[in-house]
């Protein structure tokens, strides 16, 4: 694995805009860069794929453990939601996607940092934008990326559980370009799978006393939402979810996987696993000399603190009221001053591809740059 300097394509901004990827700058900084790319060997890609499959399997066991033992208090999930989560879990309400974040430098095993299992973004960039870059810049190389095909396949799986006329509503915040693009891309793949999709802004979702409704007063049967479960739980309409009159994608059992308490649970269940870092719900001696403190319901790197000998970094935010978990510190590899993190996509429970993010800081956040990647099939890059 290495970071290579690359020459941006002539007119690269227009190329991105033609794809509808118009947020390549965010908050005055480059969000997409093609002045560099990450190169992998096929063995490294195989390792990332196998790790993703392995860890998703462990995560499903963790969900079963939480549900079977009703660990709602530990997960900071209101007990009233326990029966509902168990119901959708036992019913196997379908999942479309999630994204692991790994620390990986190509030498040791990938280490799980967290699982963005509920509202993952950077999806369109990983599935489509970097694929077009590959075809333009490295046409003879390959990319770990079957995200698009697997998304369509995943939606076909959803369609199989629904009547042919079913309509999926796609709820998102429309003034967040990345969210809008992610949700619209999900809608596009659903359409390609044969489903009908209708957009709606999260605050415009209605409740008519019996059903969630859209702005045309049409009942919402299935809602693909890009809005965190833990926020929905505590908001005014949250209790209506428990009537189970609407299906949600991602389903409510993903609340267990997007919860940072998952990290100590995994370490308890599979201590010493090569892809896990020691993690605890208290500051524990086994953390070693350096650790990362993460809010249980944290997002986008907010309120994360890294502490170690000669090491301190922290990100401000409004999270942490539900408590924290502590995870042993695994340094991200640094290339040309950039801390690189691997985002590994899980589509309908299967590994589907990666997206590389990098940042000058140790804490990856929402605006950390997306960098395309490639690998040479059957050999080193």
């Amino acid at each position, binding site marked *: 694995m290495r970071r290579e300097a690359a020459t941006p394509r002539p007119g690269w901004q227009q190329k991105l805009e033609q794809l509808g990827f118009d947020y390549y700058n965010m908050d005055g900084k480059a969000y997409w860069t093609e002045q560099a790319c990450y190169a992998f060997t096929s063995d490294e890609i195989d390792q990332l794929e196998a790790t993703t499959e392995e860890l998703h399997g462990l995560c499903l066991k963790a969900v079963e453990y939480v549900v079977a033992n009703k660990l709602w208090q530990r997960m900071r999930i209101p007990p009233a939601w326990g029966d509902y989560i168990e119901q959708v879990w036992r019913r196997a309400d379908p999942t479309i996607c999630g994204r692991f974040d790994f620390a990986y430098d190509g030498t040791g095993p990938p280490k799980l940092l967290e699982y963005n299992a509920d509202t993952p973004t950077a999806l369109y960039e990983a599935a489509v934008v970097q694929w077009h870059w590959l075809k333009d810049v490295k046409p003879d190389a390959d990319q770990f990326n079957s995200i698009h095909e697997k998304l369509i396949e995943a939606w076909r799986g959803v369609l199989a559980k629904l009547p042919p006329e079913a309509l999926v509503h796609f709820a998102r915040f429309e003034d967040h370009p990345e969210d809008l693009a992610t949700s619209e891309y999900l809608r596009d793949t659903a359409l390609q799978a044969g489903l009908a999709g209708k957009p709606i802004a999260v605050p415009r*979702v209605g409740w008519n006393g019996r059903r969630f409704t859209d702005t045309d007063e049409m009942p919402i049967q299935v809602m693909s939402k890009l809005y965190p479960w833990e926020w929905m739980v505590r908001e005014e309409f949250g209790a209506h979810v428990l009537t189970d009159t609407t299906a949600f994608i991602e389903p409510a059992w993903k609340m267990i996987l997007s919860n940072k308490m998952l990290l100590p649970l995994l370490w308890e269940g599979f201590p010493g696993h090569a892809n896990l870092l020691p993690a605890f719900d208290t500051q524990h001696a086994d953390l070693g000399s350096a650790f990362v403190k993460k809010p249980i319901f944290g997002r986008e790197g907010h309120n994360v603190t890294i502490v170690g000998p000669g090491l301190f970094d922290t990100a401000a935010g409004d999270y942490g009221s539900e408590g924290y978990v502590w995870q042993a510190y695994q340094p991200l590899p640094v290339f040309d001053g950039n801390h690189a993190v691997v985002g590994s996509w899980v589509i309908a429970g299967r590994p589907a591809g990666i997206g590389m993010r990098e940042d000058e800081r140790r804490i990856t956040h929402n605006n950390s740059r997306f960098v395309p990647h490639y690998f040479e099939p059957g050999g080193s890059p």
Partner: protein
Amino acid sequence: MSRGIKLVLMGVAGAALLYSCSPGIGSGLGALPYLWFLTNPFYRGPAVSAPATTPGPSATNPDASKATPAPSQSQRGGFGGTGSQGGSSGAS
């Protein structure tokens, strides 16, 4: 439980069961989108609870008019408050 209520419940459950098993019947009901589901579409058990529909009498439930009427306009804004306040949508 009166015979009439039992018949209504049997009718509702039967329609749901038939619908869940037969795409052909589902196609027929497609013309009545508000009658598609009485519950979460991933739920495959018999539906015996009161149908959840938009306002107006239900063709499958003659007693629907006696149930608590839903408001003609949905209440909105019950989701999104956290995201609106923090300047972040929470997606990551």
